[in-house]
């Protein structure tokens, strides 16, 4: 999040100048008024529903307020923050989240790019292929989580059934420490590989053909063409996709909630899931707010990176 820009509520101040006005009855004033009238409702909604709640959370994060126990909110300084940053429990969740984000995003990047590359080399049926590959991404995380839970069931799940029919051991997909996290990564990868694929495909099809033709005349090797032409041109777009996915993966809650409920033990509890427990099991609203603000800070850093690359891409 960039720093909140003072906006709109104070009226004309923010509209520096309108576009060169056409002749007519004071169109200048009209333009300015129009801009304010058109933009301020949207910004007000965002102020009320995003900025204000976050500021409130920021205030609460310095207090010992509890949403259920009532009583005055006492100022506790940075107490909540130090408690969170020094907590071994939080460190565990941070590590889990990191493994999850890095694992899922790299897996889906490799897979997504591969699929996109393969599709881009086909001459027929590209539209159909792309559409089919898109399906997982459009499903609700609830549906995805429930259904994979069904398929990964150790006893009657179809995955173990197939493993069994080719003579392999049953795997406890959701109830062993390692496999549960792997399952989470696999399911997220299944759902979001299409995302990377779609954007990579957009990049790949946008590579100007004459570059390949020129390389073809030079009898350059295919790997050489890929490395020197395709990748550099697709890379910026891919980076955007990767950052976008990283932010989304970092926020992940619903899939954990449904697929493993954080288990076995707490080994698949992500930071988001832990915040939920602090906020709604213990109703330690102050601590939960501080936890949330810290998460927001991470998101802000990731978003800044994302926006910077986006900006570069737009200008480039």
């Amino acid at each position: 999040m960039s720093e909140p820009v003072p906006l709109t509520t104070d009226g004309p101040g923010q509209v520096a100048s309108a576009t060169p006005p056409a002749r007519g009855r004071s169109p200048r004033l009209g333009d300015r008024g129009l801009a304010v009238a058109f933009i301020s409702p949207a910004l007000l909604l965002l102020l009320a529903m995003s900025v204000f709640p976050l500021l409130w959370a920021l205030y609460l994060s310095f207090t010992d307020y509890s949403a259920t126990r009532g009583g005055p909110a006492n100022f506790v300084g940075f107490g909540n923050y130090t408690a969170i940053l020094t907590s071994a429990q939080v460190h565990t969740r941070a590590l889990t989240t990191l493994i999850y984000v890095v694992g899922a995003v790299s897996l889906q990047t490799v897979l997504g790019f591969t699929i996109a590359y393969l599709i881009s080399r086909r001459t027929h049926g590209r539209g159909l292929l792309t559409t089919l590959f898109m399906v997982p991404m459009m499903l609700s995380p609830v549906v995805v989580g429930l259904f994979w839970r069904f398929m990964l069931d150790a006893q009657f799940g179809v995955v173990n059934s197939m493993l069994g029919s080719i003579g392999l051991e049953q795997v406890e997909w959701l109830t062993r420490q390692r496999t549960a996290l792997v399952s989470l990564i696999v399911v997220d990868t299944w759902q979001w590989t299409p995302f990377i694929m779609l954007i990579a495909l957009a990049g790949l099809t946008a590579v100007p053909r004459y570059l390949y033709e020129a390389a073809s005349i030079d009898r350059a090797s295919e790997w050489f063409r890929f490395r020197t032409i395709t990748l550099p041109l697709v890379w910026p777009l891919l980076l955007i996709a990767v950052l976008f996915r990283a932010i989304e993966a970092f926020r992940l809650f619903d899939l954990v909630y449904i697929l493993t409920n954080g288990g076995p033990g707490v080994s698949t509890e992500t930071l988001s899931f832990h915040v939920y427990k602090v906020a709604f099991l213990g109703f330690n609203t102050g601590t939960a707010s501080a936890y949330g603000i810290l998460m927001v800070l991470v998101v802000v850093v990731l978003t800044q990176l994302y926006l910077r690359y986006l900006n570069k891409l737009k200008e480039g």
Partner: protein
Amino acid sequence: MRHPKLTGRLSVPGRKARLATAAMLLVATTMAACGDGQDDGDAKAGAPKAPATIPELTKDPLTLSFIWFDWPPAHALEDFANAEYKKERPNATIKVNTVPNANWHDAMFTQFAAHKTDFDIAILDSQHIGEAVTNGNILDLTDFVKNNIDVNAYNPYLLAAYGQFPQAETGKRDENASLYGLPLLGDTWTMIYRKDLIGDKPPQTWDEMISVAGKCQADNPGVSGLAFHQANGSDAAAVTYNTVNGIYGGNLWDPKTRKIDGVLNDAAGQEAMDVLVNKMKPLTAKGSGNWFIDEVNAAVAQGKACIAFNWIAASGGLLDPKQSTLGTTREQILDKLGFATLPSQKTNLVPLGGMGMHVSAYSPAANQAEALNFMKWFERPDIQKKWAAAGGVPARTDALESPEFLNAGPFNKVYADSVPRMRDMWNVPEYARLVDIENTNVNAALNGAKKPKDALDDIAREQQSVLDSSGRKGGGGL
């Protein structure tokens, strides 16, 4: 030209109105937020009192709403109450709102926190009482019970379990303690065993049960010896451990000194954990580490378990031929399935389940009056028997001993026999966090993510620190 003027005139006030509305919303919420802190200062005083006698009831149409989690008794209650209560109060309609089990505590307490509930009667788990009472979310029914309920008609522990706070520590009711609820549905674990596989006579001790299960598993490939709750959600794994802990003579805590560390993880506690993880878990199906009520039922219905443990109130579906592979009629299924009280070992304790009815402090006065009237009606002897016949588990002793109840289901005798043996968890305000600590750690031990001893020590240490920091409010911990 009319248009420009018109639009011009319209757009300006429109915008201002929007600005003003938004600004008012912001100011209002901010002030409310700041004011909130001071207003609530008195809430500590505890729960508001319900009137000793039922106020005059409304003659207008009224919907009396409950909140429960989604399971067959919830639907049974709604049908039963609409059929029977309407005879007394034709203008009242009963609505039982249901939420997913995993969301049950959150759904009730977020509404309590909002000081606005869409239910009049909360069906709290017995352990939720402390949190609700401390926060002033439910009415104090002490005077109401004195005037309207025949307390001698109940096993005293049942009244205590579903209503009393502070908790009944001895298993007896403390006559001087306040009551905040009345029993709705009694429940405990039943042992479900395959008569065709292990014989008609259920094992009597826990050790015997384990060896019978082991033998049954060895003799019947594809059928696992045991099935029980292991999940890390709700109170699944925690109740399992607590049950074994009780049977092997352990204690969850010392309520007088509020000590958990050193009590829970004493020698008896260690033994219980060892039995659970090293003797019982190896007899369960592979991948059963996230099983709760429904998965255990499925395993029994699919004929995949020799001995299973489940809540009685959740066992009705086992007799439904449509969901079972054990037979095509109820009788055929009952030829194979037996229901028994839990085996005993060092003690004969069994877990207390079930829930009571509690009146929301935030529901309108007319609804609160109706709620009290409903509860008085519900605890009448004839209604308790009808509730038993409708599939419910009553609490009055006469109803429990009635043929209506004992004949309604093969597990009802199990319940009646279990009543004197019950033990509950702590019902302190910190319950939600305590049970989460226990759930996740027992689940970790069961699934090999932690060593049994480490898990038990972690439970004791973490629970102790939650109890010790209970004086602090909302900033105190993770």
